[in-house]
């Protein structure tokens, strides 16, 4: 890149003073956008301060599904699991980051869990095999979740060294990349990741009344 052009771009970014946005663009091996990926930045020089939200988050059970498939949150966040369904549920997790189970709870009741360990928590329901959700418990406040177009943006990131991490349920292990944000970076930074996703395995929900099966 020619020096003059580089300077011009830097000048454009510096409009937002000492913080910048980091945009993630996620595609799979065939170039299709990847949704429901959790992106995060782990500060390498000075750990960022974590402040869990005061209000609990909510992942409802409705229509025999979890309301949210992937929920990124910081350590210490409390999540409510209200049963807004017509049937009972038995939501559980056997993930080392948080093992729990809500013994059979009826519609209108709810379970509550505070996630106090970083890690991925796979949620299932002992009654409905196809119900699945993920909670990614993060030790950093800098995170985001990719939308359908495969992009996620973490706003107002202070200059410094970071490890960018990408998690997705179909990734064998997290994609990571170290990035450096200079004070002079004034425009949005775009990090592109091509993710090698595993085949999309899932239990197809059986139509009511008919015999179900694995596919």
């Amino acid at each position, binding site marked *: 890149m020619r020096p003059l052009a580089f300077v011009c771009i830097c000048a454009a970014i510096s409009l937002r003073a000492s913080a910048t946005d980091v945009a993630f663009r996620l595609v799979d091996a065939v170039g299709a956008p990847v949704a429901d990926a959790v992106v995060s930045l782990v500060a390498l020089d000075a750990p960022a301060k974590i402040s869990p939200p005061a209000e609990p988050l909510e992942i409802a059970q409705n229509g025999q599904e979890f309301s949210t498939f992937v929920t990124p949150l910081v350590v210490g966040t409390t999540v409510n699991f209200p049963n807004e369904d017509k049937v009972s549920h038995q939501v559980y997790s*056997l993930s080392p980051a948080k093992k729990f189970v809500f013994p059979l709870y009826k519609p209108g009741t709810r379970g509550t869990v505070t996630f106090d360990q970083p890690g991925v928590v*796979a949620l299932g329901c002992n009654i409905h095999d196809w119900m699945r959700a993920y909670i990614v418990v993060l030790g950093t406040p800098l995170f985001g979740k990719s939308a359908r177009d495969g992009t996620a943006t973490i706003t107002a990131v202070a200059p410094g060294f970071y490890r960018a991490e990408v998690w997705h349920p179909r990734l064998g292990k997290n994609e990571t990349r170290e990035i450096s944000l200079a004070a002079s970076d004034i425009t949005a930074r775009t990090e592109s990741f091509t993710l090698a996703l595993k085949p999309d*395995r899932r239990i197809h929900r059986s139509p009511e009344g008919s015999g179900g099966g694995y596919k």
Partner: protein
Amino acid sequence: MAWFRFRRFSIRLLALLLGLLCVTLATTYSLVSSANDASAREHARASLELGARLFETAIRQRIDLSSVTSSLMSADDAIKQVLLETPIDTKTLNSTLASYTQRVGAPAITLFDLERNLLGNTRPDLIDETEGPFAYLIRRASEREMPENNGFSYLGKSRDLHALVVAPLYAPYPNIAYWFGLAFPIDRAFAEKLKETSRIEVTFVSTEDIAHPRVLATTLPDASAKIVADAVALGRRTRAQLTDLVLPDVPAKALATEGDHYVTLVKTHDMVAEDPISIVLQIPLGPELAAARDLESFLIVVSAAALAAAAILALLIARGVSQPVQQLAAHTHVIARGDYKTRLALDRADELGQLADAMNAMSVGLAERDRVRDLLDKNVSPEVAAQLIRDGAALGGQEREVTILFADLRGFTTLSEKLPPTDLLALLNRYLDRMSTAIEAHGGVIDKFIGDGIMALFGAPVAQGDAADRALAAALAMERALADLNRELAAEGRPPLGIGVGVNTARVVAGNIGSHRRLNYSVIGDGVNVAARIESETRKPEHRTNLITSAATLAALRDPEKIFPRLLGKVYVKGRAESVEIFAVAAG
């Protein structure tokens, strides 16, 4: 080769037919037998390949069953309740797994966490390691995903062969929280089950220690399995392919006392981090060949029957041929004896029938020839007849020197007036018979009878060197014969007969004279007339002789000493310029 000659046609035909049939049948039998053997082996080999696939399928089914089992186990609430506790209560977990072994019929079930630490185990006697074959399989399965979730391994102190399967505990699917490890033994029971469906003998052999191969499981008796294991080890060492093995009798298969051939197929199966094991699949050839052996015995029976039938047929054919041949041979003897009247009756249309017909036709021909010859003999002189038969009745002739004899009966004309015709003819024939006998006795040929006269030839048709001598001797003999006849006639009270004989020697033309329909062998020429003329001279009383010859005849004599000629003078013959000197002849 003398021993190879058969005295009888029937034996030869029998030997030929039976020999050919034997060769054909033996060849057929050996071809069928070897084809049966090859096909039985081929069939056995195909069965073994099928058995090998059956084995793989059986293993695959176990693995699939384990996968289903695992998914059922991972959907079970009880184990999740146990696993929710931190730390996990190992005793409770083990008893949970133990109840699963009852529930799903898996002999050994273990549980590992994602770091491949052994959390639970129903068979501590078999499984005590953490980084063992299960850990290896879990790592491989997580890296490459399914279906590389299974393998063979030795477990326990006795290192028994087991098939291992790892299957994830999903919480929820497809999120793997733990790994189940299932083991089921590849033991005699498993092998027997395989044999039940395939009838194939199965032996699993470990050649870890090539000097001491180990039978891991087998359907064979221990002694046979040991032989198989040693053969496999030997095959490994020499890199020889093992396809056939003779094993001692298997109980209930007492087909061969020395043991049976086992068509053998050796497959190898990979182990988890160990040398591959050998899976030996075998089918005894005996039962496989039983149907073929039945067929072969049937073939022998059929062959024996065919040989017997062929023997009978050959004898019948031989009789059918040799009997008429013998008849034909006998008939040739009949013909040789001169019996041309007997006919051979062979009622058949084949070549022998044709031969019989030909022989009959020959008899007819021979009889005809005999008849013709007989007639010829009576009508012409035997010499002429012989010449006719030899040379055929060709017209034409040849010039040769011949002595011609003419004889005439004196006083026949007066006699013919006195006697009735039958007596006359009888007397004439009696006279002619005596004269003919005298002529033929000296080699003369009666040319023809001219009324009471006789013309005879010497030196034709068969040339004679002493024709003149013979002719004169014959003439003298005729005189003597007539003297004899006259004595007989005197005794009968009849008057005596007189004779005049003229002999001349000359070159004449001899041959068959006449038309195509009728021929006479005769001579023509001046000499014939001279002979007749000389004969007529005997009538002259002044000559005082009955026998006159010419100088030419005297000149032609070979032995003139026996003859005493007396010159009578010269006579002239009509149409001839020269006169002929004539002589009276008397015996010396």
